[in-house]
C-alpha cells in the first residue's frame, strides 16, 4: 500500500473505503455472467423497466388508455397501425399493453416491499426473542399460510371495494407470511453465531443486534426471494384483475385485458394472448433474475 | 532400519484453477516413505500436506486440480500413469486412509455394520463392489455376494473388537450418532486396517478429539501399526504428536518439503530456518515467558507466490539469491537428514 488513504483525492478515498464492497460486486458479477438464463432475465427486466418508465411517452395512441372509442376499427387483428390489434371499443391494444407495464411494475414493487417489510420485522422479532413471542407470531403466520393468498385478497378487496389500490393492499397483507417464515428461520441460526454474542458482550441492545447484525446477514436470502416474488406479485394482481376486483375499467391492466378478451376467443386471439405474453415475459424475467441472484449469493465462494 | 522404498514422490507440482487465477499448490514436492516407517508430515494450515497425501491414491480432484509434472511412485510404479482399474485395485488392496473429522467421514443414515461391510467386501473383491452397496443390494440375490457380505461382516466384528469397542456383535448394527467422537474414529481405523494394507495415510486423525481421547487413539494406532507391520504417513500440525509417534519427519511449507530427517534430527538439530522458527514457536514444559517467538509475516498467497524460495520474505537468513532462484533440491547434510535451502552446504 503506497499512498495513505487520507492523502488520495476523494475518488481514491471512496474507492479505498469501499474496496471490500467493490471486490464483492466484481465476484458476484462474474458468477452472474456464468449463468446465461440470469443474463436473459436481467435483460428482460431492464427492457421492462425502460418500457415502464418511458412507455407512456411514446405510445402511438395515448388516449386509448382511457375511455375513448373508435367503433369503426374495433376488433381488428394486428396491422401496421395497430401493432397488437384493437379491442372491443376500438382502442389500440399495443398502447394499452405498454401503458399497463408501469402499473404492474409499480404494483409489484409495492406489494413485495410492504409485504416484505412487515414479514421481515415480524420474523426478526419472532426469531430473536423466541419463546412466547415466537410462538404467537409463528402460529398467526401458519394460519395465514393455510389460506390460499388469492382468496384472502379476494375477500379483502370485496370488502373494501374493487380498485387497484385495494387489490395492492390486499396482496401486501397476504404476502408477509412468506417473509416472516424465511427471516425467522434465518434469524434462529444467525442468533447462535459468535459475532452476535460478541455484540451482546459489548453491550448492544436487542434492537441494535437485530437491525445491525442479524438482519443484514439475512439479506441474501431475502433478496433472492423478493426478486422471484416480484413476478408472482404481478401475476396475482393480474389474477385479481381477471376476476374483476382489481383494476377497474378503463384503467389498462393485463389481467383485466386478458379477462375481457375471453369473450372474443378464438377469433380475437390478440386481445388475450398479447397482454398475456407481456405478463409471461415479466414473470419469466423475474424468475430468471431470482435464480441468477441465488447463484451469486448462495453458496458464497468467499465466505 | 532402511529396507525398501514404498513410496517415492518426485518433484510433484500441482496447480489449482480458481476464479482468481492459478493457484500453485504444490511446487516440487519430494518425499520418501520406507517400508515399516512412520513418517510424519508436518506443516501449517494450507501448506499442501493433504494434497500431497491425496496424490498417492490419486484422489486429487482434477479438474480443478492439475498435476503439471512429477511422479508418484508406489512400489516402484508411477501412480499417475495407472489406469482406472489399476488404481481402484491399489486403493482396495494396498492403501488405507483415515481423515480428520470422524463425524463427517461416516454416513449418518446407514448403520456402522452396513458401511463397514460395504468397504471390507469391496476391498476383498473389487469387481463386485458396486453390487455390494445397499441400493444395489438387489445383487444380494446372488449367493456369491451373500457370502462376501457375510465374511465381510464377520471381519468387521472382529476388527471392532480389536479396536476396543466392546459388545461388537450388538454395536455393529448401531448408527454413527450413537457413537462418541473417539469411538467413531476407532470404527474408521477398524475399517481402514481390516485388510492389512501396505500404507496407512492418517490425515490429522486426532485433531478433532479431546486430549485424553487423543492419547487413547494414538496408542491404538501405534499398536496396530506395529502389529500389522504397516507403513504410515501421519499428517498433522501438532509437533507433539509427531515427536511421540513418528520415526521420520518431513517439514512442509507452502507446497515444498523444506526439511526431512529422523525425528531426533528434526527436533534436536533443525537446520532449515522454517523448522527452526517452528521449534521456537511452541511452548513446551520448560519454556519461560517471553521465550517463544512467532514467525513474522504470514503464509504466502498461492496465487502469487514470492519468487525464488517461498519462505524468504519471512526468513531471517535470507540473501538476495533466495529471492531470485528457487531453492535447491534436497541436499543430504547428514545420513538420512535432508534440507532444501541455500544455507546448506
Amino acid at each position: 500500500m503506497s499512498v495513505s488513504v487520507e492523502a488520495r483525492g476523494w475518488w481514491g478515498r471512496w474507492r479505498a473505503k469501499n474496496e471490500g464492497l467493490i471486490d464483492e460486486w466484481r465476484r458476484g458479477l462474474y458468477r452472474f455472467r456464468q449463468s446465461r438464463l440470469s443474463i436473459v432475465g436481467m435483460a428482460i427486466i431492464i427492457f421492462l423497466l425502460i418500457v415502464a418508465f418511458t412507455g407512456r411517452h411514446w405510445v402511438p395512441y395515448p388516449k386509448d388508455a382511457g375511455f375513448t372509442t373508435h367503433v369503426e376499427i374495433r376488433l381488428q387483428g394486428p396491422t401496421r397501425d395497430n401493432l397488437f390489434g384493437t379491442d372491443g371499443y376500438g382502442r389500440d391494444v399495443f398502447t394499452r399493453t405498454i401503458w399497463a407495464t408501469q402499473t404492474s411494475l409499480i404494483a409489484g414493487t409495492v406489494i413485495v416491499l410492504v409485504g416484505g417489510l412487515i414479514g421481515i420485522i415480524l420474523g426478526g422479532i419472532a426469531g430473536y426473542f423466541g419463546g412466547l413471542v415466537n410462538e404467537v407470531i409463528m402460529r398467526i403466520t401458519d394460519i395465514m399460510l393455510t389460506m390460499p393468498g388469492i382468496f384472502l385478497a379476494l375477500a379483502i378487496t370485496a370488502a373494501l371495494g374493487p380498485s387497484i389500490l385495494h387489490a395492492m393492499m390486499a396482496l401486501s397483507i397476504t404476502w408477509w407470511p412468506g417473509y416472516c417464515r424465511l427471516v425467522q428461520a434465518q434469524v434462529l441460526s444467525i442468533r447462535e453465531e459468535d459475532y452476535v454474542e460478541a455484540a451482546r458482550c459489548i453491550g448492544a441492545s436487542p434492537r441494535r443486534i437485530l437491525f445491525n447484525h442479524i438482519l443484514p446477514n439475512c439479506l441474501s436470502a431475502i433478496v433472492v426471494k423478493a426478486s422471484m416474488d416480484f413476478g408472482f406479485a404481478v401475476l396475482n394482481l393480474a389474477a385479481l384483475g381477471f376476476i374483476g376486483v382489481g383494476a377497474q375499467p378503463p384503467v389498462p391492466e393485463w389481467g383485466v385485458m386478458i379477462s375481457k378478451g375471453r369473450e372474443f376467443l378464438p377469433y380475437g386471439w390478440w386481445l388475450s394472448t398479447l397482454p398475456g405474453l407481456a405478463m409471461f415475459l415479466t414473470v419469466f424475467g423475474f424468475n430468471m433474475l431470482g435464480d441468477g441472484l441465488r447463484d451469486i449469493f448462495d453458496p458464497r465462494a468467499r465466505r | 532400519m532402511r529396507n525398501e522404498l514404498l513410496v517415492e514422490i518426485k518433484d510433484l507440482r500441482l496447480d489449482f484453477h480458481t476464479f482468481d487465477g492459478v493457484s500453485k499448490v504444490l511446487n516440487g514436492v519430494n518425499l520418501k516413505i520406507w517400508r515399516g516407517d512412520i513418517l510424519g508430515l508436518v506443516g501449517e494450515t494450507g501448506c499442501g500436506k493433504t494434497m500431497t497425501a491425496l496424490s498417492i491414491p490419486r484422489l486429487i480432484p482434477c479438474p480443478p486440480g492439475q498435476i503439471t509434472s512429477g511422479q508418484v511412485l508406489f512400489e516402484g510404479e508411477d501412480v499417475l500413469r495407472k489406469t482406472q482399474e489399476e488404481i481402484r485395485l491399489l486403493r482396495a488392496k494396498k492403501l488405507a486412509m483415515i481423515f480428520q473429522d470422524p463425524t463427517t467421514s461416516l454416513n449418518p443414515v446407514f448403520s456402522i455394520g452396513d458401511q463397514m461391510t460395504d468397504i471390507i467386501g469391496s476391498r476383498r473383491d473389487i469387481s463386485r463392489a458396486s453390487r455390494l452397496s445397499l441400493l444395489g443390494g438387489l445383487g444380494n440375490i446372488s449367493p456369491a455376494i451373500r457370502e462376501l457380505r457375510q465374511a465381510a461382516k464377520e471381519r468387521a466384528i472382529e476388527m471392532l473388537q480389536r479396536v476396543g469397542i466392546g459388545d461388537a456383535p450388538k454395536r455393529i448394527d448401531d448408527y454413527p450418532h450413537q457413537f462418541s467422537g473417539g469411538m467413531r474414529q476407532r470404527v474408521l481405523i477398524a475399517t481402514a486396517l481390516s485388510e492389512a494394507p501396505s500404507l496407512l495415510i492418517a490425515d490429522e486423525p486426532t485433531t478433532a478429539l479431546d486430549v485424553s481421547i487423543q492419547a487413547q487413539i494414538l496408542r491404538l494406532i501405534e499398536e496396530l501399526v506395529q502389529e500389522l507391520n504397516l507403513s504410515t504417513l501421519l499428517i498433522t500440525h501438532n509437533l507433539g504428536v509427531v515427536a511421540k509417534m513418528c520415526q521420520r519427519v518431513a517439514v512442509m511449507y507452502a507446497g515444498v518439503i523444506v526439511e526431512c530427517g529422523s525425528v531426533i534430527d528434526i527436533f534436536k538439530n533443525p537446520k532449515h530456518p522454517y523448522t527452526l522458527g517452528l521449534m521456537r514457536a511452541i511452548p513446551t514444559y520448560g519454556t519461560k515467558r517471553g521465550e517463544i517467538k512467532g514467525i513474522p509475516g504470514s503464509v504466502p498467497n498461492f496465487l502469487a507466490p514470492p519468487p525464488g524460495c517461498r519462505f524468504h520474505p519471512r526468513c531471517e537468513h535470507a540473501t538476495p539469491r533466495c529471492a531470485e532462484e528457487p531453492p535447491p533440491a534436497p541436499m543430504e547434510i547428514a545420513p538420512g537428514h535432508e534440507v532444501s535451502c541455500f544455507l546448506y552446504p
Partner: protein
Amino acid sequence: MSETLLEVRKLKKYFPVRGGFFQRRIGHIGAVDGIDLSIEQGQSFGLVGESGSGKTTVGKTILHLIEPTEGEIIFEGQDLCRLSESKMRQRRAEMQMIFQDPYSSLNPRMTVKRIVGEPLVIHKWAKGRALDDRVRELISLVGLMEDHLYRYPHEFSGGQRQRIGIARALALEPKMLILDEPTSALDVSVQAQVLDLLLKLQRRLNLTYLFISHDLAVIRYICDRVALMYMGKILELGSVEDIFQQPMHPYTRALLSAMPVADPEYEAEEIILEGEISTLGGEEGTCRFAPRCPARKSDRCTEEEPVLKELGDGHLVACHLYD
C-alpha cells in the same frame, strides 16, 4: 496490586433437559456445578478442561451472556447477579471476551472500522473525528495497519481476525478479559504471535486475564494460577508451578501425561484413561471422575463427593486420596 478483582462463589449453571410429550423438564445437566475461584488484579488465571467440562460456560456466565442458575459473581466488590439488565450493560464495559473461532466472531458484513468502533458508538464514548482517532489507536495497538480499516473480515487470516477481536474488546478499556481458547484455531507460528501480543498488552494496560483452554502448554506459558475442571467441577487449583510440578489429582496427572510434548526424547509415565465422559461420567453426589480413575481407592469414591481442600500454599485438590 494484589486486590481481588473477581471472585466467584458457588457458581452453578444447570441446563434443563426436556423430554416427554409436552417437552416437560425431566431433569438437568449440571454444566457448571458449584465453582469457587478468585482472580487478583493483573493476574492471569487459567481454566483447563476438555470438552464438556464446563469451562466455556463458566466464562460466559461470568459475563452474564448466560444467566447463572445460582451463585455469586463479585466483581470489584459488587455482586453482578443482583444488577438489573441496564446496569449490567454498563458494567459490561469492564469485562470483555475474546472468542475462540476467528471466523465467526466478526460480523462478515461490517468493515473493521465499524467492528472496532461499535463498542464506542454503543456507549456513546466518542463520535466523528474522535471516534476515528480512537479506532486507529486500537488498531495499531494490536499490530494492524490503517489500510485494514476499510476491509471486511473475510479478507484477513485467522491470526489477524483474532487481533481485530482483541482490538474490539479493548475499545471500552476493560479491566478484565476472558479469553475462550483464543489460539486453538490458529497455526503454531501465528499462535505464538498472538500470545506474545496478549502478554504485551497485559503489561501495558494492566489487564487481568481469565484464560480458558485445553492446551496445557499454553496455559503454563501464560498463566499464574490454574484450575482444572471436569464435568462442571473444579478438581484441582493452584499456582502453575504447583500444578505442573506436583500434580495431585489423578485426572491432572493423566491429562499432563496425555499432552504430547514436542520432544522425542521426553519420557513420561503414560497414564491412559479409559472410556469417555459421555459413557463413563460419574453421578451426582459421587466423585465425577471415579469411573475412569486409575487410582480409585475405595468405595468412598462412588458414594461421597470429594470437596476441595487446601493442601498448602493455595494448592487445592478435590479427591478422597487426600482427605
